[in-house]
C-alpha cells in the first residue's frame, strides 16, 4: 500500500480498498457530474492496480455459467460525445479556456490522469449508442456511473446495465437540486420502473392563434416561423401538436397561412424580403385572426403592426441598428428595437441561405437564429399584449437551458462515488444490506434541517416492461452466413420452448403468429447496430415473462445464430392485481411541468413520509407507495 492511499485504506478497510483498486468502472458522460465523478474515482484509486480475481468474481451470472471474453482489466473508461463550450467552465473543472471545442472525454482524461500516477483511464469520444458498446462491453465492468444530460441515453444505459447485469449509479442535477440512485437488475427498481415525464408540447391553436404567455410566442418563432423561412417545414415540430382542443377549421386555415408564407420565401435575397415577411405575419395574419370576433370575446384581441408604420421615425439603416442592438442581450428591447433586430437577423440568415446553407435550424448557440427568434417572439408578444423579454431570457426558454452550478454537481458526484463504495462492499460480501446499504439520495439545499434526504431502494416493479423480462444475448455472425428471421423463430422454439409468440424490435413487431411475411428476410435488416434489443413475447394462454435479446455481432467466424445462454427456461408472468396503468392510454398525454420545482416538493413529501413512519417494515411499504407519486414528476433531473 503506497502512502498516498493511506486515507482510502484507513476508511474503507483493506478488502474494500483492494476491490476498488482492482475494479473496472465505466463513466458515461464527462460533463458537470462526470468531471467530478472522474476526479473522485481517480483520487479514490478506482482501477489503479492490475487485478487477478476480477474474472472469478463474475464467473456466474443468474446462476448461468459464463466465461468472460477477457478477464477484467482494472481501469476507468470514460465515454462522452460532447466537446467543450465556454459555458461549461463554471463547473466542469477539468477543462480550461484553451480546451474549448476539444472533446470532453480526452481533456478529462488528460487533466485527471495528473491526480494519481497509477490510474488507468481510457477515453472514448463517442456516443454510448454506438454499436461497439454492446452488452459484452458493459459486462466487462464492475460498476457503471451515469453522468448524462438526457433521457434517451439514461434509458439506454439503464437497459444495457440490466442486460449485462452490472450495477448502475444513476444521477442528475438541476440548479441547487440533485439526486443519486443505485440500480441492479432483480434487486432494485430500474430507471424505467416509474414513468418519466414526456416532453411538453403546446396545442397548435395556442401557438398559432391565441398565445397568452411569452413561451407561446417563442415556440411560434422557433418552431414555426424560422423553419418556414429558413428550414424545412415538412416535419411538424415536437413542441407543437394538434390536440383535441384544437378547432379543425382553424387548423385548416393555419395550413393555408403557412402555404402563403412559402411563397414569400421565394423572395429571399431581395431587399424587401424582411418587410414582406413582417407584414405577412404581423399584419395580414393578425388582421385575419382579429376578424374572428368569437375568438376574442374573453381575450384581448391582437393589435397588428406594419413594417412602415413601425419604421416611420426610426433611423435609416435598420439592419445596422439591429446589429448593434443584438449585442445587448441583457436589455429588454422595445418593439422598434425588435424590428431592427428582426430586419438584421433576416438579412444575415438570408445571406447564409444564399451562400449555400440549405437548412438553418434553431440552435441556442447559433447567435443569428437566436436573434431572429428573440426579435420575432418579442414582436409577436407585443402584438398580443404579452410582456417582452431580453434575448438572454429568451435563450433560456427557447434552448431549454437548465441552470447548473459547480457545487450541486460536486455534491451529487460525491454521493455517486460513495454509493459506489457501498455497491462494491456488497460485491465482496462484507455487507448484508441491499447493494451494501445504497440509497436513493436527494440534495436538500434549502432545508434548515437536512443536507440530504434518503430513501430505501425499492424492489423492482413486477410489471416494469424494461427490467421484468429475462435478458439473454443473441450472437450474429459478423460476416459469412446470412441468418434469416426464420432461423431466429426456429431457434426460439427449440431453445426456449415457445409455441405462439411475437418478436418486436425497437421499430415495431416483425413476427407474430399472424405475421409471417418477414420470415425470409435477413436478420441484419433488423439489427442495424449491435446494441439493439429484440423482445420476444409469449402469446400463449399462460404467458411466460418476456425475453429480451441483446445482440452482439461477432467478428470471428460463426455459423448461424447463437443464443447465450444456450437454453433458457422462462418463468410465468406474475399475476396482476390491478389493471396496467402504464400502457398507452388513448387520450392525449398530460403535459408535464418543469421538473425542478416538483422534485423539491417530491423530496419534501418523501422526507415527511419517512419521518412519520415508525417501523422499518412500514417504512419500506410507505416508501414504495411514495415512489409512484413522486417519480413521475421528479425523476428526470437534467445536467447540462
Amino acid at each position, binding site marked *: 500500500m503506497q502512502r498516498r492511499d493511506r*486515507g482510502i485504506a484507513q476508511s474503507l478497510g483493506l478488502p474494500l480498498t483492494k476491490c476498488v483498486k482492482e475494479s473496472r468502472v465505466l463513466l458515461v458522460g464527462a460533463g458537470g457530474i462526470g468531471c467530478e465523478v472522474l476526479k473522485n474515482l481517480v483520487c479514490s484509486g478506482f482501477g489503479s492496480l492490475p487485478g487477478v480475481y476480477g474474472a472469478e468474481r463474475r464467473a456466474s451470472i443468474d446462476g448461468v455459467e459464463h466465461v468472460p471474453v477477457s478477464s477484467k482489466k482494472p481501469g476507468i473508461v470514460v465515454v462522452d460525445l460532447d466537446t467543450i463550450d465556454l459555458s461549461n467552465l463554471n463547473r466542469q473543472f477539468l477543462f480550461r479556456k484553451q480546451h474549448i471545442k476539444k472533446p470532453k472525454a480526452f481533456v478529462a482524461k488528460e487533466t485527471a490522469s495528473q491526480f494519481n500516477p497509477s490510474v488507468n483511464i481510457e477515453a472514448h469520444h463517442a456516443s454510448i449508442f454506438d454499436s461497439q458498446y454492446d452488452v459484452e462491453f458493459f459486462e466487462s465492468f464492475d460498476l457503471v456511473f451515469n453522468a448524462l444530460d438526457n433521457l434517451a441515453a439514461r434509458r439506454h444505459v439503464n437497459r444495457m446495465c440490466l442486460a449485462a447485469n452490472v450495477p448502475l449509479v444513476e444521477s442528475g442535477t438541476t440548479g441547487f437540486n440533485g439526486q443519486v440512485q443505485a440500480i441492479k437488475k432483480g434487486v432494485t427498481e430500474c430507471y424505467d420502473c416509474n414513468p418519466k415525464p414526456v416532453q411538453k408540447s403546446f396545442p397548435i391553436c395556442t401557438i398559432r392563434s391565441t398565445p397568452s404567455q411569452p413561451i407561446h410566442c417563442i415556440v411560434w418563432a422557433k418552431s414555426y416561423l424560422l423553419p418556414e423561412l429558413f428550414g424545412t417545414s415538412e416535419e411538424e415540430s415536437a413542441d407543437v401538436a394538434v390536440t383535441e382542443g384544437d378547432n379543425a377549421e382553424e387548423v385548416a386555415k393555419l395550413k393555408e397561412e403557412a402555404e402563403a408564407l412559402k411563397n414569400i420565401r421565394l423572395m429571399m435575397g431581395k431587399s424587401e424580403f424582411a418587410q414582406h415577411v413582417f407584414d405577412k405575419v404581423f399584419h395580414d395574419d393578425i388582421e385575419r385572426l382579429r376578424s374572428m370576433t368569437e375568438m376574442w370575446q374573453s381575450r384581448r384581441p391582437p393589435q397588428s403592426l406594419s413594417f412602415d408604420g413601425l419604421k416611420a421615425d426610426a433611423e435609416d439603416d435598420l439592419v445596422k441598428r439591429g446589429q448593434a442592438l443584438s449585442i445587448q442581450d441583457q436589455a429588454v428591447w422595445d418593439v422598434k428595437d425588435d424590428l431592427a433586430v428582426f430586419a438584421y437577423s433576416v438579412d444575415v440568415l438570408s445571406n447564409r441561405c444564399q451562400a449555400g446553407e440549405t437548412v438553418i435550424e434553431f440552435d441556442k448557440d447559433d447567435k443569428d437564429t437566436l436573434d431572429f427568434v428573440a426579435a420575432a417572439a418579442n414582436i409577436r408578444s407585443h402584438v398580443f399584449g404579452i410582456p417582452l423579454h431580453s434575448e438572454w431570457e429568451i435563450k433560456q426558454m427557447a434552448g431549454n437551458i437548465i441552470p447548473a452550478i459547480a457545487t450541486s454537481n460536486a455534491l451529487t458526484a460525491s454521493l455517486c462515488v460513495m454509493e459506489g463504495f457501498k455497491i462494491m462492499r456488497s460485491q465482496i460480501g462484507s455487507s448484508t444490506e441491499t447493494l451494501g446499504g445504497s440509497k436513493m439520495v436527494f440534495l436538500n439545499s434549502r432545508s434548515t434541517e437536512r443536507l440530504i434526504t434518503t430513501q430505501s431502494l425499492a424492489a423492482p416493479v413486477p410489471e416494469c416492461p424494461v427490467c421484468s423480462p429475462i435478458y439473454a444475448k443473441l450472437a450474429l455472425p459478423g460476416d459469412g452466413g446470412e441468418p434469416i428471421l426464420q432461423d431466429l423463430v426456429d431457434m426460439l422454439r427449440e431453445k426456449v420452448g415457445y409455441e405462439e409468440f411475437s418478436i418486436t424490435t425497437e421499430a415495431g413487431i416483425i413476427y407474430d403468429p399472424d405475421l409471417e411475411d418477414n420470415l425470409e428476410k435477413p436478420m441484419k435488416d433488423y439489427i442495424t447496430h449491435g446494441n439493439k434489443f429484440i423482445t420476444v413475447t409469449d402469446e400463449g394462454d399462460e404467458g411466460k415473462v418476456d425475453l429480451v435479446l441483446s445482440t452482439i455481432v461477432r467478428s470471428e467466424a460463426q455459423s448461424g445464430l447463437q443464443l447465450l445462454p444456450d437454453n433458457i427456461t422462462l418463468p410465468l408472468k406474475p399475476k396482476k392485481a390491478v389493471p396496467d396503468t402504464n400502457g398507452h392510454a388513448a387520450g392525449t398525454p398530460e403535459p408535464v411541468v418543469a421538473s425542478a420545482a416538483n422534485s423539491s416538493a417530491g423530496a419534501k413529501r418523501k422526507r415527511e413520509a419517512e419521518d412519520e413512519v415508525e417501523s422499518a417494515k412500514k417504512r419500506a411499504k410507505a416508501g414504495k407507495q411514495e415512489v409512484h407519486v413522486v417519480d413521475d414528476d421528479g425523476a428526470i433531473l437534467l445536467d447540462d
Partner: protein
Amino acid sequence: MNGHGALAAEDAAGETVAAVALAQTISADEIALYDRQIRLWGVQAQERIRSANILLVSLRALGAEIAKNLILNGIGSLTIVDSEPTTEDDLGAQYFLREGDRAVAASPRLQELNPRVAVRVDPTDIRTRDQNFYHPYDIVIACDHDFDTLSIINAACRIAQRPFYAAAIHGFYGFIFADLISHDYIITRERSNVVTTVRPETPTRSVLAVSTKKENGKNIEMVTKREIYSPLLLANTSPLPPEYLKTARKRRTVTPLLPCLRALWDFQRTYSRLPTHVHADIATFTTLATHKNAELQLEKLPSEFLRSFLQNLGSEIVPVAAFVGGRLAEDVINVLGKREQPLQNFAFFDGDGFVGQIYALHPIFPETDGNANGESDGIGGTVSVMVL
C-alpha cells in the same frame, strides 16, 4: 458582505483585494462564462460574488474542494493561509498538490481553474495573526484546525465583524459550523395563501420586512429575513433544540457524530493530538463521548459508531471532502448572494450512513418552561438568544 472602504491598504492582501474591488462591473464575457449559474441566482448576486474577498485557512483535501468551488463560481479573490509542507500522505487526497509548501504548491493549479479570480497564498502560521488580519475579507473559512485555534479565529472574526465558517473531515465523517454574526437576506417567492408577517420565525430567525410585486401575472413576495448566530465557543456547549429531545425516537435520529466531535475536541485540547488505537486512548475517548452524549440528553451511544469514528480519525477521502467542501462553498455563495437561507449553524455529514443533519445549537434560555416546543412557526417571544 461588507463594503470595501475599510481595507488595510498597507497590507499586500489589502492591495490585491482593493484592486479587485475597483474593477468595473460584470462584462459580457463574464456573463457568457457564468451563464448557467447567473440563470440560477441573477446578475446582481453574481456581482456580489465577484467582488467578494475570501480567506481560506488550511489547504488540505477539504480546503482544496472549497477553493475549487469558490474559484469556479468567480469570487473576487481567494487568499489561502497554510504554512504546512506537503507530505506524501497529502498527495493521495489533495489532487491540486505537488511537492513543496502546501498552499504554494497547489496555487498554480487552483489559479488555472479561473484566471479572473485573484488567488493569493500566505504561507504563515494563522495563529500568529490578530483581528486586523481578518478585516479585508468578506468571509473567513477555517478548516482542519483544532478547537482552540478555530475558536481564536472565530473570536478575531467577531471583533473584525466578519462571518466565519469552520469545517473538517475525518474519513467518512465531516462537519460545517457557521457564525455569520447577523445575516440579512431576501427570499423571493410566489405568494401563498398564508400571509407572511413581520415576526420571529425561530429563536434565531426573524422576518424583518415583506414587500410584493406582480410578475408575469404571479404575485411575488420578497421577504427580508435575518439570522443571528453564536460563536463556536458557545455553540459547542449548547443543548440541542427541544424538538429533538421530545421522544426516544427523535433522540435516536440525532447523529452520534455530534457528541463524538465534541469529545474529539476535548481530547485534542488535553493531549494536543488525535486519539490512536491504543487501549488507553480508546478508553479515554469513549468516556468523553459518553459524557458528551449524556450532556446532550441523547440515547445510548452506539459502540459500532464509536469504533467507526475512531477508525476514520485523521483520514482524508476525496468524495467526502467534495461533499463537505461543496456544501460549505454553496453556503458561502448563498451568503454572498443574499438570496437563500444560510446554514444555521452546525451541519454534520456521515458519508458511510448517508446522514446529513443540521442543528441550530445556541445557548438558549427558555423563559417559560415546557413552552418552547420548537414548532418552526409558533415560538416567537417565548425564548431569547444570547448573542455576544
